[in-house]
């Protein structure tokens, strides 16, 4: 599910789930919109906060800087595909 997506969840049967979060380059704009909405309306729309998420974004900024400014990336790396 892409970032900043309003959604609701119903449980028709007792359920156990595993889940996860991620940041994708392809939806980084939505990530930004989501962060701003979370900041402005806070618990009206989001039920938790992850302070460590900012550290993850910093890592991605570092990655972009390394790749596009320092040209410090292996062109053959599969990682280039997710920029």
């Amino acid at each position, binding site marked *: *599910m*892409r*970032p*900043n*997506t*309003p*959604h*609701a*969840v*119903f*449980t*028709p*049967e*007792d*359920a*156990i*789930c*595993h*889940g*996860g*979060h*991620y*940041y*994708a*380059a*392809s*939806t980084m*704009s*939505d*990530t*930004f*919109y*989501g*962060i701003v*909405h*979370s900041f*402005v*309306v806070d618990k*009206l*729309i*989001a*039920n*938790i*906060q*992850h302070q*460590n*998420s*900012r550290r*993850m974004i910093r*890592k*991605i900024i*570092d*990655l972009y*800087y*390394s790749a596009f400014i320092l040209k*410090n*990336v292996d062109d053959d*790396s599969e*990682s280039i595909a*997710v920029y």
Partner: protein
Amino acid sequence: MRQGTLEQIYTSSQLRDGKVLNALAFPFLFSSAFNDPFSTDFVAYMNNPLSEGTSLGIPTPDIRWGLCATKGAWHGFHTDSDGFGTFIDVKVGKKWWIIARPAKDGMADVTNFAGIKTFLNEKFDAGLPGNGLWILEAVLLEPSTRL
């Protein structure tokens, strides 16, 4: 929100008239991160020379977690925090995931949710299905399926 235990959830699940309970965000401290096609964050941690010497590690408990709920649980309209994308694997039972997309002129313009009034709109009510603010699509998630 109330405090309780997993044992209480299990007990309720075994009762004919057990309470409807919903427990979210159990952090998986020892879960492993993995490289999926969407995780730019994973690439940033694993392939970034600028990170050397500055890394505090991947915040696994923030991005890998579990949840459980008994039949009938309902979580009203919201977005996930911190601009995160989200995946869900159903291990047991079922989840009915109701996802909104913008209703602007019938076009799937996702930037519509960028508007500053998206959630400050007088029509927005977390307990209601959008009041025309968006179009809803629902996905029934069963074991072995991933959102």
